[in-house]
């Protein structure tokens, strides 16, 4: 069977991706609080949050980031990724219960490395809500395998 994954050479700078949407539910937030142990009032105390600038509980920033990572895998054929090496990320606005988010990504740069069998692909990613507002954005660096190691 041939390898269907996309290698470093197959991914051009400027290529864009858009994922399906996903509605973030109260269940997602409660499960993520349980998993992470982050029970900050921002995410878990509905009464306290009525008095806040948000007016209600909001999703953990890292939950939005992680859901975005999951959505991205549904936006393209898998890359021949060797490692997720880093990111620079901004939280621009809240994700509230019932919001539907999707990720829009673009290949920003490709960089050779000292090893000839791989390269680093930097993606610009924006997480949008149902109103088209950017709620998170940043850059992620992926170490992607080359088709040939020579």
């Amino acid at each position, binding site marked *: 069977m041939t390898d269907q994954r996309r290698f470093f050479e197959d991914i051009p700078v400027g290529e864009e991706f858009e994922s399906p949407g*996903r509605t973030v539910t109260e269940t*997602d937030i409660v*499960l*993520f609080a*349980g*998993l*992470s*142990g*982050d*029970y*900050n009032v*921002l995410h878990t105390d509905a009464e306290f949050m009525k008095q806040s600038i948000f007016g209600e509980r909001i999703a*953990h*920033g*890292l*939950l939005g*980031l*992680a*859901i975005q*990572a*999951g*959505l991205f*895998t*549904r936006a393209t054929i898998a890359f021949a*990724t*060797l*490692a*997720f*090496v*880093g*990111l*620079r*990320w*901004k*939280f621009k606005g809240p994700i509230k219960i019932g919001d539907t988010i999707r990720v829009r990504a673009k290949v920003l740069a490709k960089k050779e490395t000292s090893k000839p069998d791989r390269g680093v692909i930097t993606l610009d990613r924006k997480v949008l809500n149902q109103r088209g507002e950017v709620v998170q954005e*940043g850059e992620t660096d*992926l170490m992607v395998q080359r088709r040939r190691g020579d």
Partner: protein
Amino acid sequence: MATERHYFEDVVPGEELVTPAMTITEAHVGLYQGVTGDSAVDAENVPELLPLAITTGLGWRVPRPPLAVKAFLSFEWEILEPVRVGDTIHSTSRSAMLRRMRDGGLVVKEQQIVDQRGRVVQRGRFTFLVEHRPKHP
């Protein structure tokens, strides 16, 4: 009565905090994948963002009042080494930079995730907006 909280004015520059540790299990990986739809690049390892999520929770277990975070603004993060099921991780953080602003204060924290062998597996910098101590408590 409101719970006691740690405000911008209470943050000590250079102060280092070490969290308790946690062993990462198959259950963590399964829950994480189910909730987020994200998985590890290499199935031998745990998803790269999972240790980070777990250390945010560990940070709340350091015995002192919780930081009055108004907003988690940004972070830069490097993933240096894979983490596997059965590894036990904790994090260390240091308040690196403080800047007073009108509607709060910026706190930059340098953070590392360390495994049971003492290896730094992930590291980076977080920027938080933290509330000022209220004038009339």
